């Protein structure tokens, strides 16, 4: 393929359709590695990947760590609690300090939009955005597309509904961009207090009710956080569940359900739906490692390795 990978992965906008396909094709080959007994390839041996997490995370941080280790990279994990970040060090100073170790990649999760982009300006390392504020979470979107492509072969003309708190969701933003780029039709649905004005500018439709949910091939359910209730975005979680919960009364048997996790059982999804074969949630988690291996591989392999030590 002739298309070039970007130097960093900050936004889904860094990839055109063929760029996304290239990462997913690579992920397919790494999914095969994950099926082996020895789940390791030497692609990044001798190179360092720093995971810099300023927010609590279970699945994203563990899957990035596993992805780097399965590529044989040396991995450094830094979490804000207990680190110099806790002592008031600025993001810039932290990144410049870590850059002294000459990492090949810095994976960053931050509560603030634009953090990954700033980091890219301060380091020679490739930067992977593992979630910046409510802005983007591109590797989540890639693993979601990977999961759907495996199931349907292609996303062209697939009808996808994204249901829930779109306002506070970086996953929703990256997914809208990635799904539409791959040819899907996307509708966002949720309480009007949690759907941003002018969200249609991202290329999706917006609606406040589940009235036409039966037209969806895939329902992508977002996490409903308890704190939204205290901020009066929804009066109660009970009322939210009554209007927006995806359960077997609302689902057709052919419809598939996705969720980025962690799930609030009985709020946005019924317990029975989570555990049913219609849910792709387990497949999403599994895809996470292969897709993140592919992202690291595509960004790093081909960049210069210290030849002298070999």
């Amino acid at each position, binding site marked *: 393929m002739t298309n070039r990978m970007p130097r960093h992965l900050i936004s889904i906008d860094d990839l055109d359709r063929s760029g996304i396909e290239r990462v997913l094709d690579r992920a397919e080959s790494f999914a095969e590695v994950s099926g082996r007994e020895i789940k390791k390839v030497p692609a990044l041996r001798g190179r360092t990947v720093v995971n810099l997490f300023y927010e609590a995370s279970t699945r994203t941080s563990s899957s990035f760590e596993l992805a780097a280790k399965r590529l044989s990279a040396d991995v450094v994990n830094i979490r804000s609690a207990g680190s110099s970040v806790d002592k008031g060090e600025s*993001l810039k100073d932290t990144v410049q300090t870590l850059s002294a170790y000459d990492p090949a990649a810095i994976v960053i999760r931050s509560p603030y*939009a*634009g953090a990954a982009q*700033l980091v890219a300006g301060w380091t020679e390392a490739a930067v992977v955005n593992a979630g910046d*504020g409510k*802005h983007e979470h591109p590797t989540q979107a890639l693993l979601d597309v990977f999961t759907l492509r495996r199931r349907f072969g292609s996303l062209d003309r697939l009808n996808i509904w994204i249901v829930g708190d779109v306002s506070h*969701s*970086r996953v929703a*933003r990256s997914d809208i961009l990635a799904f539409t780029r791959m040819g899907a039709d996307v509708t966002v649905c949720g309480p009007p207090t949690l759907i941003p004005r002018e969200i249609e500018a991202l290329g999706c439709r917006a609606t406040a009710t589940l009235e036409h949910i039966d037209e969806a091939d895939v329902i992508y359910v977002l996490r409903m956080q308890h704190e939204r209730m205290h901020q009066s975005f929804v009066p109660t979680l009970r009322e939210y569940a009554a209007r927006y919960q995806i359960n077997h009364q609302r689902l057709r048997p052919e419809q598939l359900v996705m969720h980025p996790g962690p799930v609030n059982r009985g709020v946005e999804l019924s317990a029975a739906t989570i555990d049913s074969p219609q849910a792709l949630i387990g497949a999403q988690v599994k895809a996470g490692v292969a897709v993140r291996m592919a992202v690291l591989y595509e960004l790093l392999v081909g960049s210069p390795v210290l030849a002298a030590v070999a």
Partner: protein
Amino acid sequence: MDQTTRLFSPSRPGVDLLIRGAHVLDPRAELDEPRDILIRGGHIAELAPADSIGADGRLEVVEAEGRHLFPGFVDPHVHLRTPGQEYKENIDTGTAAAAAGGYCAVVAMPNTNPTVDSAAVLGSLIELARREARIPVGFLASVTRGLNGGELTEMAELRDLGAIGFTDDGKPVVSAGMLRKALQYQRLCGGIVALHEEDPELSQDGVMHEGAVSARLGLAGIPSLSESNMIARDSALALYEDARVHFQHLSAAESVAALAAAKEAGAHVSGEASPHHLALTDDLVRTLDSRFKMNPPLRAESDRQALIEGLRSGVIDCVATDHAPHALHEKEVPFEQAPMGVTGLETAFPALYTELVMSGELELATIVERMTAGAALYGLPTPRIAAGEPANLCLIDLEARFVVGEDGYVSRSANCAFHGRTLYGRVLLTLAAGAVAYRRPVLVRGEDDRAQAAIGADASEASR
């Protein structure tokens, strides 16, 4: 108290200077033609047809053919960060930046640390300005103590000491009842009440304009009606109390409509708009560069068009920069964490000239009028180009092009929203209160040849 005495700067000897052949534009004086201007002892002694005044040997001559001479600009809204945040700006650097932008007077806001809410703080600032201001500076005191929105300052004493008026700028006066008392008290002490309009219940934790761009970026939005609702509310208060109110930094189409309606109803209100709101839109925030973060935020193209139309029609009375310096380390953080505010004194004229006049949207004369109109609104003398007037002038080369920030900034801070843009309209010389406040340093560079020629004999002197 004489109004000129509400502006403070060291007393400087008046300059003797002949500016020859510049195209003189002063809309109020109906001047729009090449003229020679002779300045003696800091006052305009003679205005004559171009090349009619001969130089005697001792007089400094600025050959200014092809350049434009305007009345010095007056900015009713700057933050000089003194006292308390001198690492961002101080009176010396802030007024030097103003002079470099062609300004002959500026009005500083009181949201300093401590707040300018007592005679002691205002008195010490006035003393400082008398020592180090490069151009005359005036001060607004706060409406409420510590900007707390809860207790009025000693407005009468502050006025007696020299405050031009009052503002809680940076914050709205949230309580209508509190603002009403301030407007009633204004009948006793005079002085304009200037308002930063924003309903915190609607702004919440917003960091940019609410619209398609905030939806894309996942940033909390500040809806336009956060501003326009408050303008409507306070216009009604101003009308009811027959008070004099000025609305600061309008950003939204709805706000222009609210101001127009208030004027139509007979309220004694006025409004300002900043060069960044007139020239830029929220589309730039897609870069997530904190240079585009300020309050009120950059809004949509339709808002920008409404501001331009408001400036053209006079609904918006004047241009104000809201020059708000911040240190690099404060701005070099993710967008949501960065403080609000951009610098603007050095780029105000070139930005408006390049983005609005060269594009054909506004007349040059309109820009010049609106950049000087703040003086009268605030009860200060308006700079005029006429015989007998003090020399408050700026000489500008409209054809000189430059990249903003390429040679650094005169301001102590670099958070300029126009950074990196190519603009036209170099300020070559500023006279404020009869003294030379700024002279463009001559650099060894081809494109500055014209500037060098303009400054003429005196260039070598300046570089010594």
